[in-house]
Each structure stands twice: as C-alpha cells, then as structure tokens.
C-alpha cells in the first residue's frame, strides 16, 4: 500500500474515533437528562479541565500496570475502528476481521481489571472484579452473536460480510444476534446497564483513583470503545457501505454515528443494573436465544 494512503487511512481512523467519542459522550449525557448544548460542550471543557489537572497516585500502586492499562483503552478502540472496511478501502486488511475484533474486545478484559487492580484501592478492586463477573456474562452471547453474520456470509472477513448484505441487511433477520452484540458492546464499553464497574455507588469504581490526563484517556477510551463497537456493527449487521446517493465510506460513517448516538442515548437513559441481576438472564435467557438464532441462520443457509 503506498505511503500516502496509509497515512490518509490512519488520519481517517483517528478522526473517526474522535467523532465517535464525542457522539458517545454527548449521547450518554443527553440520555441522562442533560441538555443538548451542555452535553455537546461538556467533552471539550472536560478535556481542557483534565489536561490542566495534576496526576495523582495512591499508596503502593502498581504504577506500571495501572498506567499501561488506563492508557490502552483508547488504542484498543482505535484498532477496532481500523478493522472496519470503508467500502473498498480498509486500513488494516485482514481475512479474519471478526476474530481480531473479538480478540481486541477480550484485551479490554485485561485492561479494565488491571486498571482496577493497579490502584491498590478498594473502589478499584471492587470495580475490576465486578467487570470480570459481567464479562463472563456478556462475552459468550457476544461471541455467538458474531458467529451469525460470519455463517451467513461464509467468511470471517468484514468486507465480505458487508458485501453479502447487498439484498437484505443482517439486522433484519438476525435481530437477536444484533441485540446480543449491542449488549456486549455496552459491556466492554462500561456503559448503561452494564456500567457497574464504574458506578457512582462505588465512587467511580475502576476510575475512582484516576485524575488528570490518566482520567481523560480512560474516560475517552471508555466512550471510544462504545463508538468502535458500533462502528464494527456496521459491516456486521448494517450492510457496510451500501446505500443510495452517497459513496460507501460516507455511508459507513453515517451509519456508525447514528448507531453510536442511539446506543449511547439508550445507555444514558437506563439505570445501572446490579451485577447479580444481570448474570442470571445473560446465561439462562440471552445465551440460549443467541444459540437458537445461530440455528435459524444455519437452517436458512441449508
């Protein structure tokens, strides 16, 4: 790939992550009841405020793991967005886009738990272990949900899955898989009903002991992950770049932003669910439904 198009692609990915982060932060704040103008200007003012704030540490924190994990949430979101095909172009060409997207969201497990552990404080530990419990609940439905579009398109390549939806988008006949995927996105983005690891009632959980630039990148990473998850849903369930009038890359951007806005707004409106409340339905209701969905897809393909 020529140098200039790699740079252009990287710049496009970074701009996309920035836009998605902003949309997520605004949507979540509006869902929680904040007005549009306040919600849209908050992220910029918060950025200025946190850049000016000093960093802090706790007694005997494991600084290496703590800082590494906090600063890795945003790069993970960037890598997820880099996997998304913008029509015919893709920044990271791979035949296994689905598997790599899944691998990246599993690395979030490590990042969030280490973020809680590294601070050597009660709030962080409680948040980190809550996250692991939730992750055990949402990850299997998420993985089974990723199987459905891959089966229907007979490929693990995100570009080919997007192309296979030229007559009918997968979201129409795989709604359960789409729902399980969105629950998974809320889970690894720590938003909405699955935001217990960063809950106010545990003083911010894994984010409790962070300040200044560390808090900024951790919060931005959290919002960016929701946007990135929504962006990956575009080729998986929403037809990729297909659509009238506009070129493919524009449609990918439009769909990603609309899905991010809707998802973050819904996440802002819903209360945080206590972890024991979620695990039962996740294993006993959601997982069998997603497996049934996969069965339906398999039968349709026969």
């Amino acid at each position, binding site marked *: 790939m020529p140098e200039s198009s790699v740079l252009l692609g990287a710049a496009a990915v970074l701009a996309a992550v920035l836009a998605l982060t902003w949309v997520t932060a605004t949507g979540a704040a509006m869902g929680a009841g904040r007005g549009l103008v306040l919600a849209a200007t908050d992220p910029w003012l918060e950025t200025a405020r946190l850049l000016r704030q000093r960093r802090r540490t706790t*007694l*005997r*924190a*494991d600084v*290496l*793991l703590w800082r590494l994990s906090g600063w890795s949430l945003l790069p993970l979101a960037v890598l997820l967005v880099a996997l998304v095909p913008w029509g015919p172009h893709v920044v990271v060409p*791979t*035949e*296994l886009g689905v*598997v*790599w997207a*899944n*691998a990246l969201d*599993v*690395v979030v*497990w*490590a990042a969030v*738990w*280490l973020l809680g*552990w*590294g*601070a*050597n404080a009660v709030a962080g*530990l409680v948040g980190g*272990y809550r996250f*692991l419990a939730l*992750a*055990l609940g949402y*990850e299997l439905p998420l993985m089974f949900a990723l199987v459905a579009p891959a089966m229907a398109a007979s490929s*693990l390549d995100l570009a080919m899955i997007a192309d296979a939806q030229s007559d009918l988008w997968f979201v129409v006949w795989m709604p359960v898989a789409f729902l399980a995927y969105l629950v998974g996105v809320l889970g690894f983005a720590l938003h909405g009903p699955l935001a217990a690891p960063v809950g106010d009632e545990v003083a911010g959980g894994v984010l409790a002991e962070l300040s200044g630039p560390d808090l900024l990148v951790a919060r931005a990473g959290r919002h960016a992950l929701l946007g990135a998850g929504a962006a990956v849903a575009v080729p998986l369930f929403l037809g990729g770049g297909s659509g009238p009038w506009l070129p493919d890359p524009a449609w990918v951007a439009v769909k990603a932003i609309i899905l991010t806005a809707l998802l973050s707004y819904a996440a802002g409106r819903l209360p945080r669910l206590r972890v*024991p409340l979620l695990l039962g339905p996740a294993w006993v209701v959601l997982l069998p439904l997603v497996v049934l969905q996969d069965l339906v897809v398999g039968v349709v393909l026969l």
Partner: protein
Amino acid sequence: MTSTDLAFWLCAVLAVASGVAVFVVDSMARATYALATSFVATGLAVLLLQQSYLGAVIVLMMVMEMAVMAVYMVMFMGMNPALMPMSMVHSHRWAIGVSVATFVTLGSGALLVPWPARRGSPPPDVTAALGRALMESHMLVMMTVGAVMVATIVVGVVLSSHRTRYDRFGDDLRHRDPADRGAR
C-alpha cells in the same frame, strides 16, 4: 535474515523472557500478565506460520484465560495488590531439572528429526481448509466434546458450591430478597 526471521526471533525472545518473568516478579497480577504476554508472543509467532486463524484465536483465548485466572487468584491465594516480595516457586530443584530435561528432549527432537519436504502448496483459504480438516470427519466428536466440557464445568461448580440458589431464594425460589445474611 528476512523480516519473517526477525519477527520470529523477537516473538521467541519475548515469549521466553516473559515466561521467566512469571517467576521473578513481585506480584500476582504481574505474574499473570507476564504469562499472558508470553502466550500472546507465541500466538504472534503462529501467525508467522501463515496460520492466521490459529494465531488470532490463541491471542484471544489466552488473554481471556489470564483474566479468569485473576478470579481464581482471589479464591486461592493472598491477593495483595501492592508489590511485595513473594516466591512463586515450589520444590524448585526438581522443577528446574524436569523442565531443562523436557526442553532438551523437545528441542533436540525439533532439530534432529528429518522433516519431510513440502508436497504441493498450501490451499488458497487456509482457515477453511483447517476448519474442514478439523470438522469434516470429526464433527460429531467436536460437538459432543464441547457440550460435555461445558456440562462438566457447570456441574463441577454447582457440586462444589456451598450455597445454591435454593439456599438463597428459598425452596420454591420465590423469595425476592436473597437471604445471604451473615457469616456461616
């Protein structure tokens, strides 16, 4: 030395170094994630063998497993997050002897066995070929083994659990507020 060779040696050194780090570092979390790094480096080396699916899945599964290991850390070992000198080794003379012997055996096997020459070329879609080889004739085994493994894990946890949902919610599973009160 091609770039593949360079990448291989980097992954190999990283895998061995982080494997050693597991026993040298001062905290359970660092030991766990040093092990995860070692596995990830191995997965990346598998990518160099053109087995992209296996490499990606190795990375995915190992990171998830290390995260779950953190849960077991709480159950079975002291979980002091602060960095404290701790010893990760038990009966280390025996262990060193056995591991050196195993390494020499496997390594000499890898170096001294006459490897066959390649016949033909790899199929165009390596992942599909791998899937077919694993699943086609062994589909029934794979399905059964997977289901049996999950059932075993679930049953093992249920059997070893002190309090089940009947203890918490009452015999007819009706009580809304789980009676989890108090220590034993």
